[in-house]
C-alpha cells in the first residue's frame, strides 16, 4: 500500500518517552475532550429538550383529536392531582412520577386523557401514548413514541394504517383482547398483525396494564367533577 512508504524517520528513531510524559499527554487529551463535550452538551441541551417536549406535545394532540390545550396531572395516593409547571423546579423533577395529560377542545370541554405507557416488545421497550375518552370509556388514539421493533414486521404497530384503525374506538372494559388478523368482531378486540404477534401482544398488554394503573383515579376524578 502506498502509505507504508511514508513512515517518517523521526517516529522510527524516537526514544521511549518517560511514563510521566505519557500520563501528561493522555491527561491533556482527556481534559480537552472533556471541555469540548461539556461545551457541546450545554449548547445542544436546550434544543434537545425542546425537541422532546415538542414530540410529546404533538403526540398528545394526535391521540386526542380536536385537542386545543392540555393540563398535566400526576398520580398521588390513587388520586389525580394537577401538576403546576414550575420552571425553577423543573431540573429537580422526579422522572419516575406517573403523568397523564388532560386535553381540552377550544370550548375548554374535556376531550380525554393522553396516557403514556410502556411495555417490553420484541426487541426493546415500546414507549407509547394513547388517548382515552373517560365518558365513553374508549381509546380514541394511539401513538408510538419509541420502538426498536423489527423493520417491516413489528414496526407495523406504528406504520400500518390498518392496525391504527383498531384504536379509533376501542372499548377498554373489562379487558382488551387480541385476536388474529381479520377476526375482529367486538369493540374490545384488537386485530393483530400477522408476522408480528409479539409486538401486537405487547401493545395490547401495554394498554391493559396502563389502564389498570389509571382506571380508578380517572373514574374518581370524573365523578368528583
Amino acid at each position, binding site marked *: 500500500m502506498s502509505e507504508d512508504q511514508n513512515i517518517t524517520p523521526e517516529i522510527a528513531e524516537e526514544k521511549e518517552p518517560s511514563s510521566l510524559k505519557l500520563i501528561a499527554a493522555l491527561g491533556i487529551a482527556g481534559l480537552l475532550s472533556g471541555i469540548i463535550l461539556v461545551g457541546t452538551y450545554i449548547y*445542544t441541551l436546550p434544543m434537545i429538550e425542546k425537541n422532546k417536549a415538542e414530540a410529546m406535545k404533538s403526540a398528545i394532540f394526535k391521540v386526542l383529536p380536536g385537542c386545543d390545550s392540555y393540563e398535566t396531572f400526576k398520580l398521588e395516593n390513587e388520586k389525580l392531582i394537577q401538576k403546576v409547571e414550575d420552571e425553577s423546579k423543573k431540573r429537580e423533577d422526579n422522572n419516575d412520577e406517573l403523568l397523564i395529560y388532560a386535553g381540552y377542545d377550544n370550548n375548554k370541554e374535556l376531550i380525554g386523557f393522553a396516557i403514556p405507557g410502556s411495555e417490553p416488545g420484541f426487541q426493546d421497550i415500546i414507549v407509547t401514548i394513547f388517548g382515552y375518552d373517560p365518558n365513553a370509556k374508549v381509546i380514541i388514539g394511539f401513538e408510538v413514541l419509541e420502538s426498536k421493533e423489527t423493520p417491516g414486521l413489528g414496526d407495523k404497530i406504528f406504520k400500518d394504517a390498518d392496525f391504527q384503525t383498531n384504536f379509533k374506538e376501542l372499548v377498554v372494559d373489562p379487558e382488551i383482547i387480541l385476536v388474529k388478523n381479520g377476526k375482529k368482531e367486538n369493540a374490545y378486540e384488537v386485530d393483530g398483525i400477522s408476522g408480528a404477534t409479539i409486538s401486537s401482544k405487547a401493545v395490547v398488554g401495554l394498554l391493559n396494564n396502563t389502564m389498570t394503573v389509571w382506571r380508578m383515579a380517572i373514574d374518581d376524578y370524573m365523578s368528583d367533577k
Partner: protein
Amino acid sequence: MNTIDNRGTQEFMKGIWKENPIFVSVLGMCPALAVTNTAMNSLAMGLATTFVLLCSSILVSSLRKMIPKPVRITAYIIIIATFVTVVDFLLAAYTPTIHKELGAFIALIVVNCLILGRQESFASKNTVGLAIKDALGMSLGFTFAMLCIGIPREILGSGSLFDFALFGENFEPWVVMILPPGGFFMLGFLLLIFNWYAERKKRRANELIVENE
C-alpha cells in the same frame, strides 16, 4: 509542485474506488449491515462518519509529533470518541428523527475500524493537507458504498426511495431485504460484482503482457 498535486488527487481518489473501505478493504461492516435498511439512514450514517473521520484526521495529523508513540492508539480513541459524542448531540438537537432511527449506531462509530485505521496508517504519518484529502476520499467512498447497499434495499424491501413510494399499491415489498439478512445478501452481491470486475481487469492486464512477449 505538479507531483505534489498529483499525490493529493491520488490520495483522494483511492478511497473512492481502488481502496474503497467497504468493497475493497471490507472495513466498517457493522454500520454497512446494520443501518443500510433505508437510503436516508445510509446517507445520514455516511455523513456522520465523514464528519468524525475528517475532524479526527485533521487533529491527529496536526498533533502527530506531540502524541507519544506508546499511547497513540489511546489518544486516537479519545479524539474519535469526542467527535462521535459531538455528532450524537448535534444530531439529537437538529435532526431528532434521524437520531432516533440510527439509535445506538451513532455511538458505535467510535469502533468503526475505518476511522481508527486511517489515523494509524495515514493521518499520523502525513501532513494535514494530505490527511484531509485522504479522509475526504475515504469517507466519500464509504458514503457511496453505504448508498449502494441502502438504495436497492429500500427499493426492494419497502418499495420506496428516500421515503417516496415508487410503485403502486400492488407492489408486494420484499420484506427480507430490510431485515438483517437482506444486508448480508446485498453486501455479498456487491462484493461479488466488485471482485469479479477486479479479477477480470487483472486477467486482461496479464493477457496483454503475454501478447507483448
